[in-house]
């Protein structure tokens, strides 16, 4: 018998000024989701079932940037993406651009197990979710007041945020002489990024 182990994350790049209360809330959510995984492993669940169950729980809790509590596009909408991979046979499934599927990670697993493909996106992914009978909700379910505020700050700072840092007021870099009207990503002038 091997020894089981589990590790989870809620995102990297944390605002150094994150209030103590938010830090404690983050740790509570992490501890709760970790325990779900530990209990399942003790009960003999497979690695694949455990990663899906734990990520579903993290998607459902609005604290982290996934599922409910997802970051917002510049239009104020939510477009989510997820992937799952089974080391046994290196099978995998992925989805992008989903906006009504309550748990994107479960749709990614259906893509892996019930479709001839490994990646579905946008309307095709949404259609497959309905075919598979997965739970769907209105896009507003995923949008939180906190993130509406964060989007406003990001727009004022003319920046794209990859992490939980609160954007400073118009970043000095935003005035840097770079093309794309001073757009900043991750606190740096977007011009340093090779086109995606």
């Amino acid at each position: 018998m091997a020894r089981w182990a589990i590790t989870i994350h809620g995102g990297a790049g944390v605002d150094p000024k994150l209030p103590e209360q938010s830090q404690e809330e983050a740790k509570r959510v992490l501890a709760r989701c970790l325990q779900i995984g530990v209990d399942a492993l003790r009960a003999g669940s497979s690695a694949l079932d455990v990663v899906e169950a734990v990520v579903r729980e993290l998607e459902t809790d609005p604290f982290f940037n996934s599922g409910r509590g997802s970051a917002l596009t510049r239009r104020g909408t939510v477009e989510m993406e997820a992937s799952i991979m089974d080391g046994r046979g290196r099978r995998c499934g992925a989805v992008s651009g989903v906006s009504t599927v309550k748990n994107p990670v479960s749709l990614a697993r259906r893509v892996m197990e019930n479709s001839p493909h490994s990646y579905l996106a946008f309307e095709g992914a949404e259609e497959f979710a309905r075919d598979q009978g997965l739970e769907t909700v209105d896009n507003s379910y995923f949008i939180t007041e906190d993130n509406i505020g964060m989007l406003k700050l990001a727009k004022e700072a003319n920046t794209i945020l990859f992490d939980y840092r609160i954007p400073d007021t118009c970043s000095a870099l935003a005035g840097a002489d770079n093309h794309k009207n001073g757009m900043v990503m991750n606190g740096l002038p977007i011009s340093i990024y090779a086109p995606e």
Partner: protein
Amino acid sequence: TVGCAVVDSNGFCAAATSTGGLMNKMTGRIGDSPLIGSGTYACDLCAVSCTGEGEAIIRSTLARDVAAVMEYKGLALQEAVDFCVKERLDEGFAGLIAVSKTGEVAYGFNCTGMFRGCATEDGFMEVGIWE
């Protein structure tokens, strides 16, 4: 972005990652999380889930690289994680979590903090944010 990497009692590994992406992103933008080999990877050696600057994680195929340096350079899990975070991200900022088929857990990040938790069968359990 959230993620999970697990090895079960049979020694089988799996990983999953899920995200809303970047705040104020363009509609239609795809990041690293759904890209197998970048944001998520699992094989018979290990399982990995990444988070951070998607563009940097994509360019470095970060999740697959952890498995690759274990496979080809014979590094242990934490060594492989440290090597990839240190050597593969160029100017990018990211973090990752990983498990190995032998029941080890590891993580690494080169930015300010990463929300993370880990537990092993021998009773070790940790939840953390900062270094």
